[in-house]
């Protein structure tokens, strides 16, 4: 059969796009808080106030005239990322992993000229990558030196950990590993590998690419079952505290692990995708329903919430 039965999906607790939109995003994410999440610059500011670590901010380009001066921000760095503050779906993120004598190289080794970088910044300012095409600012961040625990698990890109935080409870997590197909980006629909991560231990459960199960990384052939996220306790604590910070009830937190600085928040997502269910091999609905059944007056602290999730959602 080409299609599976909707009743079977329902019995597995798999959440569909319509239910996510109206039942969770629409209900738990207040519209007025969206700018905090959709604008990466604003996210950085509230994260700093909440003592949540984020990648270093090298500079912000907010006017076309400043585009010419972009070199000043980037020429002495080991690598950097230019992204639109209001970008969505990983659009418009330019990653430069090597800077040598004024020449810039992308993760796949191809050179990006300064003119091309400027054009990219111009496109960002004009709103080409932002939601609704509104004018935007370009944010330049320091490149994350990713943790050696991920050697071989990622191809030309920073692997990140997506944790779905529902009303402050970390309900489901996955790791997103970039591949050659995804051009160093960590978006599953672009071909990154998604690895389901156990909330309790930070160890791999299951892995998929293009929504199909995989056992080995397609580019490095490393066995994905061996993946274990280091500093998991800190990471899940940071992710969970994003609830208080942003006020969003149904939140996707994208965390990265820096070699020296440990887990840090890369960005927040008010409309986290559904692929995390495929990566975990489970539907997310039973977990969401369990948290919903607790009501609003449980009075749990961040640590207690994490303990609760570890107890109920361990594999």
């Amino acid at each position, binding site marked *: 059969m080409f299609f*599976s039965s909707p009743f079977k999906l329902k019995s597995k607790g798999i959440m569909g796009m319509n239910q996510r939109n109206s039942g969770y995003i629409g209900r738990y994410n207040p519209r007025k808080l969206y700018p905090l999440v959709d604008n990466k610059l604003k996210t950085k500011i509230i994260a700093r106030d909440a003592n949540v670590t984020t990648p270093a901010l090298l500079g912000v380009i907010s006017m076309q005239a400043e585009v010419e001066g972009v070199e000043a921000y980037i020429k002495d760095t080991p690598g950097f990322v230019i992204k639109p503050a209001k970008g969505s779906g990983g659009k418009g993120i330019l990653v430069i992993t090597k800077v040598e004598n004024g020449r810039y190289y992308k993760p796949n080794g191809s050179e990006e000229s300064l003119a091309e970088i400027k054009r990219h910044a*111009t496109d960002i300012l004009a709103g080409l990558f932002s939601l609704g095409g509104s004018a935007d600012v370009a944010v330049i961040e320091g490149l994350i030196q990713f943790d050696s625990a991920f050697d071989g698990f990622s191809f030309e890109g920073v692997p990140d950990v997506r944790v779905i935080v529902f009303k402050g409870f970390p309900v489901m997590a996955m790791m997103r590993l970039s591949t050659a197909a995804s051009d160093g980006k960590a978006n599953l629909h672009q071909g990154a590998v998604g690895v389901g991560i156990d909330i309790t231990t930070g160890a791999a459960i299951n892995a998929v690419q293009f929504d199909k199960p995989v056992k080995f990384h397609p580019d490095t052939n490393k066995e994905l079952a061996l993946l274990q996220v280091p500093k998991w306790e800190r990471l899940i604590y940071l992710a969970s505290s994003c609830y208080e910070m942003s006020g969003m009830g149904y939140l996707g937190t994208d965390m990265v692990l820096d070699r020296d600085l440990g887990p840090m928040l890369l960005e927040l997502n008010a409309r986290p995708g559904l692929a995390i269910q495929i990566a975990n091999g489970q539907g997310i609905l039973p977990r969401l329903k369990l948290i919903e059944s607790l009501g609003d007056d449980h009075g749990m602290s961040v640590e207690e919430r994490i303990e609760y999730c570890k107890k109920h959602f361990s594999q």
Partner: protein
Amino acid sequence: MNARTFFFVLVAGLLSLGIFQTVQRHVAFDIPWMPGETRTIWNIDAKINFDANDGAVLASLTTPERQAGYTKISQNASSPGYGLSFLDDGETQKAEWTIREASGKQTLYYNIQVLEDAKSLDQQILEMPALFDREYSAAGFAAGTSIINDAMKTSADAFSFTREVLKQLNADNPNQNVSLILTGKATKTEILIALLNEAKIPTKKIGALVLEDGRRRQHLTPLVEVFQEKDGLIVSRLFDATSLKAVNRDNLLLWDQSGKALLELTGGSDSKVSFAMIQQEQPALSALLQKSENEHLFNFSIHSLPVEDQSLFKGILMIPLGVLIVVMMRVLVGLKTSGTFMPVLIAMAFIQTSLVTGLVGFVLLVAIGLFIRSYLSHLNLLLVSRISTVIIMVILLIAMFGVLSYKLGLTEGLKITFFPMIILSWTIERMSVLWEEEGAKEVMIQGGGSLLVAVLAYFVMSNEVTRHLMFNFIGLQFVVMAFVLLLGSYTGYRLLELRRFKPLADKE
């Protein structure tokens, strides 16, 4: 009342409002459900011949009034040299011809178009026609009194009395009294009227025209309308003096209800009125619109707008259906489209260009546009000017296609100008960025999705039946709105998700 209940009450309210308005329009104004339904219109000519007496002539012809089964749509008359006016004194309607000087044979024509209309009703009778005085011969009077007395005994009211009289008049072996009366010059109709009058029953002579397609030189059939008061209301019934059968009003147009004469002529002699008629089938809607009394009923509808604006609305009122298709495709199927409502705009362009021309033109334009755009992306331009360049480029391409196809003799190609150019340019820009970022596959998925939805929307929006329904029944807009609202609260799986999550569902 919580939000959920309120929502469903709102949807149910919209739905019932829409359906009620739609059904009401159908029932009250007779607007057909299907396009192409026809209604019968009778086109009747009355021809008046007479000899003028070398002087002023005044001819006045009684014309049909409002009555059950038929509605007058239009009337006109022609006769060279005559002054013409249509008179309505509140009781009878007349066409009146006048001329100062006429001689010899004269022919006047009167034409009327009546619509077969089950909704039309007889006029209410406000007062009884007056009884009249009449002198009789002694013998006739005695016979008449005897007939009246016989009928009176065996009847209960005016109608049954009339029937009893008719039985005697039309008996196979008429009795002595009846035979005596029938020997006179008077027709049975005149006798019936005289007898009823004598019995103090008000009557009126009616001239009826039997409608039959293609008939010529027809004359009015005389009928007798008998009145009686019942429960404070005046009711009447038609009788045919020569038959006992009830008068069948199908195909019967009551032409002359004046109770006087069909034609009043002064200044002429030897007058004769004859009728010719043809039956025509007209689209129901245009027939309804011609119905003059419907004017105010259509006042609050789009039909009251000038025709040019009406045709504009014909397009606009279809958009909700296109939007409904988009919502269904996105919410129920989960198709990706580039730009939420772009498919509707493309579908509207398809309606102008016809489907195949539109599809070919669209794909060609976008493909060539993408090709040129890929060069532009090297130029490091600002977004606004880049899109502006694409717009100009699209216009040039359209102009080029137009000229090229004209030179090649393909006039179809000229229709490509109907495409909304700004939309095309944005499509090209988005597709181009999509191509750079996510590759050709995603472009095909989104472009294909958009085109698929556009084609579906095209079929729904260009369908004759849906066009007819959406244009004539504004209430359907509410129905569409209710469906869109309902779809907005659908939280089930999308069709494509059933495929996407299949590996997950099949696990274990």
